[in-house]
């Protein structure tokens, strides 16, 4: 017998979605507890202390955004928001409210598992010591020596490009909103200056992408932000 897998709390009011999530997650070694509403979800989050929460935004008894904020208020486990609303503004709101990632219905099981793995990995990293050397695909970031190499060749980055790249890379696989990135790299006074970010992302792509118009590493999430693509995790369904 292998050790029981991570415990996933699914808060979702639609039985068909719960059935799909339960079947796919348990078959991939996760343990699942289910809630069909916000109240039950909060109770289960307190009593079971799950390692990750899948939260549907369209719950009947509470606004999913509010629940995200509430959970984030006292719990550190990753929250992945699931929504049938495809609007970018909703995704941004959920992420800025403290969600770690989002999935828009319909999504495939591979995509779901990839997001869960990324979120769990980041949660683990956040608990342990921060790594000083990151290797993602062809890119190697040595935070201690402030050195970035691409295929073994040293890259010359400006201070802002370096901060931007290390921020995205240390959240590899996870989407960061424009606001979150601007806040981290330029500071709280510049969170509306999205064109700064876009111009620097374009510069960075010219330095690290083979074809900056067809980025492999620095993916744009239209209307939301950017995601450093983690090649270990397949993005496809």
């Amino acid at each position, binding site marked *: 017998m292998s050790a029981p897998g991570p415990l996933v709390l699914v808060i979702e009011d639609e039985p068909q979605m719960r059935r799909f999530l339960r079947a796919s997650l348990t078959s991939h070694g996760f343990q699942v507890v289910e809630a069909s509403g916000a109240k039950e979800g909060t109770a289960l989050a307190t009593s079971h202390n799950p390692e990750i929460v899948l939260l549907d935004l369209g719950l009947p008894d509470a606004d999913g955004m509010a629940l995200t904020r509430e959970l984030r208020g006292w719990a550190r486990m990753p929250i992945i928001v699931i929504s049938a609303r*495809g609007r*970018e503004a909703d995704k941004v709101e959920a992420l800025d409210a403290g969600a770690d990632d989002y999935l828009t219905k*319909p999504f*495939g099981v591979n995509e779901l598992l990839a997001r869960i793995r990324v979120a769990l990995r980041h949660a683990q990293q956040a608990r342990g010591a921060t790594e000083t050397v990151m290797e993602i695909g062809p890119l190697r970031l040595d935070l201690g020596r402030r050195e970035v190499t691409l295929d073994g060749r040293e890259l*010359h*980055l*400006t*201070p*802002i*490009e370096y901060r931007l790249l290390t921020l995205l890379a240390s959240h590899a696989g996870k989407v960061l909103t424009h606001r979150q990135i601007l806040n981290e790299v330029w500071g709280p006074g510049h969170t509306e200056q*999205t*064109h*700064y970010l*876009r*111009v*620097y*992302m*374009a510069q960075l*792509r*010219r330095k690290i992408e083979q*074809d*900056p*118009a*067809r*980025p492999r590493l620095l*993916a*744009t*999430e*239209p*209307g939301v932000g950017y995601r450093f693509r983690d090649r270990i995790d397949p993005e*496809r*369904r």
Partner: protein
Amino acid sequence: MTDGMGPERPEWAAWSRYPATVALVAAATAAGVFLRGHLAPPDLVMLYLLGIVVVATRFGRGPSLLASALSVLAFDYFFVPPFHTFAVADERYLLTFATMFGAGLLISALASRVRRHQREAGEREQRAAAAELRARTEEMRSSLLSAVSHDLRTPLGAITGAATTLREGDGELDPAQRADLVETICEEAERLERFVVNLLEMTRLEAGALEVKREWVPLEELVGSALTRLEERLEGRPVHAPLPADLPLISVDPVLMGQVFYNLLENAAKHTPPSSPVEISARVAGGSLVVELSDHGPGLPAGAEALVFDKFYRAAPGGTRGAGLGLAICRGIVQAHGGTISAETRPQGGATFRITLPLTGEAPSVPAEPEPA
């Protein structure tokens, strides 16, 4: 006489017609006084009649009656001896007054009839246009419904068929058949999703509910996000996008404009053979950004260059490759940005889609950093 009647020129407000009439008669009188050394009394009468014609055609019956009466009185008072009284020395003038007043009445009757006819003709035209619009809307609605139901039922039918086969025939299916059915379900569900997304987008566009949230964006990012999202569907087609590094930032809605490139690339993926290249180029010309997307497929059917942007237009009739919404959405979004989109078959083969976006406003500056050594 049609001008002044058109809907673009509003008619005078009812109350203001009478003061305007008085003013016109006063103007005719002033002109008469000014020119009296050069004009005989009959000429002066003509001057007043001209004023009455103007009033009758522009202001309608009531004001023209007033104009006729005022004209007779003013003519009497200012130009018939003894001047500056209403008394008349020469009785022949009474006939002049009567003729003048009669002509005024006749003119106002004729003019009001002309006005009525024009109004009725205008109303008839409006009614006919409204009826035609209703008929066209009805026709569009029914063709929309049949297209929608076809495009919803086809993938649903395939999914239902494959899923029930899997459920019922579990014992008799070999692994290859099972895999085939499962693949069908996945593919058709994806197709259904794309169709629903496009349908919602189209509905938003047509309801005028589209909110264009402009931000300053490099073109490269819009093209790049579309290419990333379509990576799989492009199935290894080489995409050459040598975008000049010095292109200005453009002020567009990044989500919507990204969708335009997504739809254009998806269209290329649908209609060109696998591994045939796609080129994207951009340049600034005449205050606009011109972006061209060229493929090496069969090109557009002759004469369909404009039709391809119509809703539910399909290159192959009865074709199942798409619902014919992608390019219609492109056009809607580009137009919402004040731009244009066109398509052509190149002489050497393949289709080119051209987007022209006006470059408005000045891109904000970004504080530069010194490049590291």
